[in-house]
């Protein structure tokens, strides 16, 4: 029993373990209930096609929440940066200038958010909520409410580079999103900037005493989140080869749900990039999975709630600092005590 508990302790140190378990269980459940769908590659390719923009948004948001802040403006950046990209491409026929401008536009939004929050002291929830309305409104005003088709961009290299199909089937945006996930993981877990974010999230005053420039780090953080959201906007616009004024508006809740079920603490100080990765693919595949089982679309929200609840509960049970941590409970349990007594007697 003791060896099992030690093995369990090692096992639980795997980052994002609860959500990985939930993900595997879901895939198994869907494969059993909808074998014709989930044993076919197409459904997975459709996830790899549609989930990456949400994942990219989730990565940036994970950093922000780890710092104890929140950013509600990323959905507006999807529209704003998508507009910049489409407008510049349509006007100047320069996809790379459009690309850089779109990302810079996202960065500008993030920078302004950072100044409002770090320098002026506006709570991040209020600042970014106002930002969301402002940038959304500005986008609609600038484009006159029109949506644009940019199918000509398919003839440019930028299209297959970011949203092409590897070997004819694998959506390239999924690879870009995976690459960004690995990069952000290293930033958060192995770089000084990530360390600073976690200190700030834990306690900004202590972080300040330890030499972290809290204001500067927050500004950088929101700017980076804006840049990342700008990139997500480009991926979405390239994949859809269309710009809509409402694009991104439906991402707010799903992306937040993905970050939280992935194990990032709402209190800050702790973030899981691996958790966000699997959390996003869970959220992105849930409804399709429910539909594939044939039990009807009305069940989606109910199932989503169950999955979220299960992930959060698992996270808490496995959390080391929690006195109800399952390892500690097992160690204190009568079974372990019983084994100890047996060894003493023999």
């Amino acid at each position, binding site marked *: 029993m003791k060896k099992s508990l030690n093995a369990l302790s090692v096992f639980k140190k795997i980052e994002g373990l609860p959500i990985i378990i939930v993900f595997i269980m879901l895939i198994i459940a869907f494969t059993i209930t909808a074998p014709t769908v989930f044993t076919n590659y197409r459904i997975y390719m459709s996830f790899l096609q*549609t989930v990456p923009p949400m994942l990219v948004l989730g990565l940036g948001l994970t950093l922000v929440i780890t710092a104890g802040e929140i950013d509600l403006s990323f959905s507006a950046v999807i529209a704003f940066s998508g507009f910049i990209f489409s407008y510049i491409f349509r006007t100047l026929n320069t996809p790379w200038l459009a690309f850089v401008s779109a990302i810079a536009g996202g960065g500008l939004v993030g920078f302004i958010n950072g100044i409002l929050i770090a320098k002026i002291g506006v709570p991040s929830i209020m600042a970014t909520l106002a930002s969301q309305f402002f940038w959304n409104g500005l986008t609609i005003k600038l484009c006159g409410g029109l949506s644009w088709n940019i199918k000509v961009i398919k003839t440019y290299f930028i299209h297959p580079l970011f949203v092409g199909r590897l070997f004819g089937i694998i959506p390239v945006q999924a690879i870009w999103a995976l690459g960004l996930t690995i990069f952000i993981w290293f930033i958060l877990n192995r770089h000084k900037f990530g360390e600073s974010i976690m200190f700030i999230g834990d306690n900004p005053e202590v972080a300040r005493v330890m030499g972290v420039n809290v204001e500067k780090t927050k500004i950088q953080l929101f700017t980076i989140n804006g840049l990342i959201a700008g990139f997500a906007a480009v991926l979405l616009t390239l994949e859809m080869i*269309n710009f809509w004024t409402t694009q991104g508006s439906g991402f707010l809740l799903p992306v937040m749900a993905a970050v939280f079920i992935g194990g990032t603490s709402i209190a800050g100080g702790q973030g899981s990039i691996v958790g966000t990765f699997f959390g996003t693919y869970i959220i*992105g595949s849930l409804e399709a999975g429910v539909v594939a089982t044939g039990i009807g679309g009305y069940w989606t929200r109910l199932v989503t709630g169950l999955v979220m609840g299960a992930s959060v509960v698992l996270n808490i049970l496995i959390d080391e600092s929690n006195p109800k941590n399952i390892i500690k409970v097992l160690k204190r349990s009568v079974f372990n005590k019983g084994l100890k007594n047996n060894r003493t007697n023999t």
Partner: protein
Amino acid sequence: MKQKFTVLILITIISILITGTLLFSCKGKTTSKNTTEEIVIYMQMGGTEGDPSTLARTNGAKAAAKSLGVKLIEQYSGWQPEKMINQFKEALSANPDGIVIMGHPGEGAFEALVDEAISKGIIVTSGNNPLPNIEKKYQEKGFGYAGAELYAGGYLTGESMVKAGLKSGDKALVYGLFHQEGRNQSPQGMFDALKNAGCKVEKLDISPEVDSEASLAIPILTAYIERNPDLKAIGTQHGNITSNLMKVLEAAGKKPGEIITGGIDTSPATIEGVEKGYVSTTFDQVLYLQGYYPVLQIVLTKKYKIPGLHINTGVGTVTTKNIKELKPLIEEGIR
């Protein structure tokens, strides 16, 4: 000092953005006669600014306001019934000359409010989604309707899908907002048309997430197609999902025409789908007229006491046969 400089830069950036926004706003401003006789109308546009189901309506309303010298106040509700009710109350408190509403919240929710508005001398009319009993009650006071008959429009689209090649016994899916009263009329019409043609039809409800972000429909419909390899048709009466039908069929590995599709409204993405044969037919409810006529109705009633007119704007469907001539107008946000 450094902090003050940073704040100054921030204020400068925000000022430039606000000034730029105001300049753009002024660019398209209606130059109406600014006299005491100017008619003020509050109008519910339905969705969000610029979305495919709203844009042409907004443009039609603005065109009417401009030519008739009306001050138009646009209201956007994201198709949320409770927000429409709140917006009516806001309009009521402003005491305008007229209010244009949509029937999504239902007659029960609107009746008392319409009673109050009309008792105050405000002209109320409707568009897009009818309120037949209220219309009957207040037709003399100018309550009219300009819109497609939702159920009839869905039925017409279903019939058009049958004409595109469906046979009795074929399997079909109708993907619609079945959980929303009002917006469930058109997909129900489509469902009934396909069923009456002998097809085996299933309903699938659109979730609130997909309602806001239509790209999320792609894996859902792909999963459905994979689960039902004998599927012959997909129909929807959601404008944004219609725009994504081509992407859905591509993701599912289907060639144009392999699955007959029917949708609603027109957007640049839908045009491309029709041109390439992925979208077989799309219902045209001429949103421009749904914007123009209600504004005209209020002016006619205000000035000449003309009763409410009931105008059916659902004139037909767009297919590969007529898409060419409509394309430039669709891209301008007129059709």
